[in-house]
């Protein structure tokens, strides 16, 4: 029971990080139908930037989060403007290949500038263990889980209630007719990138807090797993990304704790296959319509 409680906390922590990154994948996919393979690397840049701000400018945690969010949002918007916008009318794969290239570029430039050494992420939020009998939870875990849930709820509200959010939904529903309703496509796409990459940078900070060693290639595997989360949830769906992220986190922790851990990857990805075979459009994705 106690062990179950602790494992659940761990799973939730891992899951909320996957979910935060998956949100960026899913939002960008929603409006552009583009799998932004550079997203994992943007997450890595977010982590590095936060480290940089903390170590060289000695900024406090409360200042680092908004600054990183803003800077990475700007980076995301710039990448979209420079690399993806010229390809908007090109076939989808061209943009996907561009995204892969942007990812390699970001990894290597970080490697060249920051050096290959892994860096210790500072304990920005301190570390306390709250105990209640045998149950224990750290402030980092609670912070990550609650802040992620809060951010996701805020995003859901934003998309559901605000004009910009409505425009995003309109755009993801029908990108040909959205402009006819007076929606400025470029602006909405920029907003989407800003929010998506901003959330990834927050995930970058959270990873730094929870697993405080970062390196230029850390975005690859986490990025792919977030992509997997987005797809299990049903890519394009915000609820789906959150559900997929938590599901993946939970499955990873459970399969490693109950089954032989060396088969963990096989089990996790086998389960994925199974889910997609049963629900080919993911948990919350709309079933593919056969329109004749």
């Amino acid at each position, binding site marked *: 029971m106690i062990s179950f409680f602790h494992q659940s906390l761990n799973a939730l922590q891992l899951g909320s990080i996957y979910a935060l990154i998956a949100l960026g994948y899913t939002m960008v996919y929603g409006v552009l139908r583009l799998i932004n393979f550079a997203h994992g690397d943007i997450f890595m840049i977010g982590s590095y930037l936060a480290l940089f701000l903390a170590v060289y400018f000695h900024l406090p945690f409360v200042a680092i989060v908004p600054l990183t969010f803003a800077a990475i949002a700007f980076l995301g918007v710039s990448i979209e403007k420079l690399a993806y916008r010229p*390809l908007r009318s090109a076939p989808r794969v061209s943009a996907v290949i561009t995204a892969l290239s*942007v990812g390699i*570029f970001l990894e*290597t*430039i970080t490697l060249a500038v920051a050096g290959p050494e892994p860096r210790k992420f500072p304990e920005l939020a301190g570390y306390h263990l709250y105990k209640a009998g045998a149950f224990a939870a750290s402030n980092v875990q609670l912070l990550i889980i609650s802040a992620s849930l809060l951010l996701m709820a805020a995003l859901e509200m934003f998309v559901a209630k605000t004009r910009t959010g409505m425009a995003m939904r309109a755009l993801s529903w029908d990108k040909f007719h959205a402009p006819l309703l007076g929606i400025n496509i470029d602006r909405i796409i920029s907003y989407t990138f800003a929010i998506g990459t901003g959330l990834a940078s927050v995930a970058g900070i959270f990873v730094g807090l929870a697993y405080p060693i970062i390196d230029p290639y850390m975005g690859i595997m986490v990025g792919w797993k977030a992509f997997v989360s987005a797809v299990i949830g049903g890519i394009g769906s915000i609820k789906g990304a959150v559900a997929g992220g938590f599901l993946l986190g939970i499955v990873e922790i459970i399969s490693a704790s109950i089954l032989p851990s060396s088969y*963990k990857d096989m089990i996790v990805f086998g389960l994925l296959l199974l889910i997609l075979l049963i629900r080919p459009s993911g948990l919350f994705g709309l079933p593919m319509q056969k329109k004749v």
Partner: protein
Amino acid sequence: MFKKPLPIILPACGLGICILCDVLNCVDPYIAQIIMYIGINIILTASLNLVNGYMGEFSVGHAAFMAVGAYGASFFSLSVFPQSPVFFPLSLVMGGIFAGAAGLLVAIPAFKARDDYLAIITLALLMIVKSAFDNLPFFGGPQGYYGIHKFTNLSWAFVWTAVTLVALRNIVNSNFGRGIIAVRDDEIAATLVSINTKQVKILAFVISSFFAGIAGGLFAHLIQFINPRTFSLVKSTDILLMLYLGGSGSLFGSILGATIWTILLEALRFLGIWRFVVAPLALIALMIFRPLGIMGGKELGWLRQKEKLS
């Protein structure tokens, strides 16, 4: 049947030169190695082209089929057949068959899922295959599979590249090929003009992975050592980049893409780390100016079957 002599003479000359080079050992081994890599990359790229280019799917798991082929072929050449170059082609084909069987495993989910969901399925397959080889003590797990003989030479690389290109060309320019392209353009319309889309998908995946397996076998018998990490996502990404650099839906594009990417990375080696800053930037620029890749879906020369307009 052979109205044009060129398609026969050219490969024959090429093979002749390759055999001569192998026998006389007159090519600088470094250049030879790069040429063999180019051959292997052409096979990988062209075979991925069948699924990603002609059928319009987005498979990211090509390295998995390459892995199955590499391990399969090495197993057969080391443990089943006598260890002689005579049995090398047979080992390669066995590796290809195993890879083709793995391709079947992806084809079945592809009946239902498409696009990004299929991309994830292929990703999952890649992870599972890699994890499986990590956990198979027979193949050395992550320590790798040793002692493979160096059977791959210029001639074999040339022969298999040619075989792959001819086979893919013949399939693409046949009823089956038209079915594959029809699935890409409009899957529902395809079934409604009598195309058996399931059969077409199985065919595309199995043939594509068969040749990826052949490439894997050649690769294993060239570097004589394989371990699961060689066949990671990075490998898949490389193949994808070569494919779309050359232009999907064009076999000549695959030849160009594989050749240019291999040579470019080799020639830029002196840049060190900056190579992987320059190369992706070049690729982004190319995508912006030629979104369809160098060939832009066009076919060239003999690879394009001319229609007889009587």
